[in-house]
């Protein structure tokens, strides 16, 4: 079949740095074409070129066989190419319908026609299989629903090519399943779908063909038939990835280090109790919105809540993160960019921020000691940075996570709580972070891993506590760790049923 959109030896340079070189890709109508690669491989740049956000430095694009240049994203959209962004780009105070038609309002006699827009919105949302109220303000929607609204907005214009940039990063398995249903529907309508992700199981489930990028180069384009996730990982990283998870350290003890009883976080957690042992990696599973993040934010004093917290047999209460750190507990936020690092500041300032008193001599900060600590952090955590004076925001997601780890380890904690340790992190870095987490436990510290990635919890943790709707739904012991046992506790239904439920609502 003829391709609808074809890229021919596309290259892109920013100044002297070439981020894409000689990439060719063709998209056929009615196929789902996945583009995979580590962070920094050039996936997003390629996507932005294909959707008109960036002009290529070299190479040409062909639309329906004709050479084409896009003057910008609006031009590309008008020719039927739409991009669903990774970040949520909606105005939170406007309603769903207002957001859908933002910048392209339906007008009648020069005034906006709310009724018509509401109707169109309802129709398109129904088509997507969701019952979101068009009059609801976006700020009151869940993240998953916001993503759906964003997809609806993209699909509002007539489209031949729809590009998804890591759409499931914020979705739970059930929500992801409904998204796949939408993608399959698009495919059935003859739309070409470009799908960027680094969740390889997903790619296996949804894609027809896969293109692998590494370091801005085209490595392979293969049919999905016979291409297993492990092989995809090998192509992406360029080496064997069969050993993603390290051995679980045999240091898990039954000495209670931290025990939490009847923790209540108003609006998020109704009641939660658990015990954390010395030297163990304790997983926290559950759907997004189950209250995991809020539970731990409350324990370390970042959020109001009450309950009985016992550390080393003594009852404690932390009023802010500073007190928790002083007691040896650190919490690494899932929101690295918003709550973890100062993106506009350099690595040194970020690194020392939480443990600044360690770098203070008399009243003044010892800049030399900070520089030494940065040298050590770059070495110990393998933070890859072109220059030491980069801003934290200029690092890739994986290196930001390593910097955040390095920063919090300067506090010398006994308990490390890591929320979504590998979100937005490429697979090579994931392996490093897993090994690091295992080494923390091996040193006798206790680690809590909050994760929405089931494989991660199973591969990494000694035990997994699962939360559902603000309560602890249960606990899975090491011997029983499986996706099904976690999904069952997280949703109340077994996994096969989850797909059926998703299909039913779609």
């Amino acid at each position: 079949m003829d391709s609808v959109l074809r890229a021919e030896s596309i290259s892109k340079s920013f100044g002297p740095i070439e981020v894409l070189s000689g990439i060719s890709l063709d998209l056929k109508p009615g196929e789902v074409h996945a583009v995979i690669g580590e962070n920094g491989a050039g996936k997003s740049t390629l996507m932005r070129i294909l959707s008109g956000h960036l002009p290529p430095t070299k190479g040409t694009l062909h639309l329906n066989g004709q050479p084409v240049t896009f003057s910008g994203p609006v031009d590309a959209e008008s020719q039927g190419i739409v991009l669903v962004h990774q970040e949520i780009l909606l105005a939170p105070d406007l309603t769903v319908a207002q957001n859908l038609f933002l910048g392209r309002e339906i007008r009648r006699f020069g005034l906006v026609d709310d009724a018509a827009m509401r109707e169109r919105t309802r129709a398109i949302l129904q088509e997507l299989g969701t019952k979101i109220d068009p009059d609801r303000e976006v700020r009151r929607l869940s993240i998953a629903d916001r993503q759906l609204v964003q997809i609806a907005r993209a699909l509002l214009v007539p489209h031949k090519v729809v590009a998804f940039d890591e759409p499931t990063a914020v979705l739970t398995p059930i929500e992801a399943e409904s998204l796949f249903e939408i993608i399959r529907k698009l495919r059935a309508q003859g739309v070409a779908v470009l799908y960027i992700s680094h969740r390889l199981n997903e790619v296996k489930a949804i894609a027809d063909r896969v293109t692998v990028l590494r370091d801005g180069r085209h490595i392979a384009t293969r049919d999905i038939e016979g291409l297993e996730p492990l092989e995809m990982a090998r192509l992406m990283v360029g080496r064997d990835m069969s050993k993603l998870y390290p051995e679980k350290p045999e240091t898990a003890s039954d000495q209670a280090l931290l025990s939490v009883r009847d923790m209540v976080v108003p609006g998020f957690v109704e009641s939660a109790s658990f015990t954390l042992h010395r030297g163990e990696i304790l997983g926290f599973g559950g759907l997004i919105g189950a209250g995991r993040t809020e539970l731990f934010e409350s324990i370390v004093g970042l959020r109001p809540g009450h309950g009985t917290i016992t550390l080393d047999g003594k009852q404690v209460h932390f009023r802010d993160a500073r007190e928790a750190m002083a007691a040896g507990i650190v919490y690494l936020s899932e929101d690295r960019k918003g709550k973890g690092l100062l993106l506009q500041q350099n690595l040194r300032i970020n690194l020392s921020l939480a443990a600044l008193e360690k770098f203070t001599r008399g009243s003044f900060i010892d800049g030399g000691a900070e520089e030494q600590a940065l040298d050590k952090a770059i070495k110990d955590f393998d933070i890859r940075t072109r220059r030491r004076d980069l801003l934290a925001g200029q690092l890739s997601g994986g290196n930001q996570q390593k910097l955040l780890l390095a920063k919090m380890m300067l506090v010398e904690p006994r308990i490390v709580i890591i929320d979504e340790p590998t979100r937005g992190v490429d697979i090579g870095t994931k392996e490093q972070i897993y090994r690091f987490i295992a080494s923390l436990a091996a040193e006798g510290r206790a680690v809590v891993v909050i994760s929405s990635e089931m494989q991660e919890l199973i591969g990494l943790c000694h035990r997994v506590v699962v939360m559902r709707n603000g309560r602890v739904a249960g606990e899975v012991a090491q011997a029983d760790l499986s996706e099904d046992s976690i999904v069952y506790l997280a949703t109340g239904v077994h996994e096969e049923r989850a797909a059926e439920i998703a299909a039913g609502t779609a």
Partner: protein
Amino acid sequence: MTESVLRTGAEKRRFSIDMRALSPFIALLVLVIAGALINPDFLTTSNLLNVVTRSAFIAIIAVGATFVIAGGGLDLSVGSMAALTAGVMILTLNNLGGGDLGTLAIGMLVAIALSATCGLANGLIVTFGRIEPFIVTLGTMGIFRSLVIWLAAGGTITMRNFDLREMYRPVYFGSIFGIPIPIIAFLVVAAIGALILYRTSFGRHVVALGSNEDVARYSGVPIWRVRTLTYIIQGICVGIAVLVYVPRLGSATPTTGLLWELQAITAVVIGGTALRGGIGRVWGTVVGAVILELVANIMVLSNFVSEFLVGAVQGAIIIIAMLVQRSVHRGR
């Protein structure tokens, strides 16, 4: 400040980033050259010393404003606070009645204590009331201003003791080794300010708070204390500025300190401090304050624009400075 200049020359890649630090110095240089071309009297020592002396109050206040703004806050009340502090200080001196050094010392202590308390009030309302600093300090600006009008009963508060006035005069008009005392005062304040902002953990915390409050909180920075302290520092700086200002005229009126907040914030912005917080430039601020006074001086010495339009020109400068800042920011 020379350090950043040198670094820029050595490392071309950092050019755009360092533009923020460099641009106030370039602007200063351009103004000095322009002034010299316009009027030969401009480049005389006495004129330049006069300009820098006159910029001292704003410079001292603006050093405080650098902390508040770098920490992500804003203080509009500084002009009114200065007027109130000056008024209360003079009333205290008059009520004590003495003409000795002790009386003056008490008056000075009262001034610093009052302005620090005003800053504390701003800080506490902003942090514990969780209200936008713009609104809080707009409110206190009105409160402080009307308090001074009320104290002065609409007129002027003047130092009555002649001996005291004579003794106090040198603090504004005197000089040490040929350098006017106000200039020394503002250099000392700026040096201490730079030391606190750049070298102490409190200063680092201010920058972190202004960069991203959530990150600061999650990193264990005591954000309430840090934020309140920035407003207290602002208050103390206002107090110091008043100590230098009072001997100049020996009086306070309802129009004392009018539009000082505009000038202080303008100086801070010209200096390269980010109005959204997270970047603080103490020395840039000092240069910014001098630039403002230079512009006024050049306007007086030339005949291009009426000197009554000084406020308009300064208002235009803050807008232009913001535009420059944004284009520098985009250029990154």
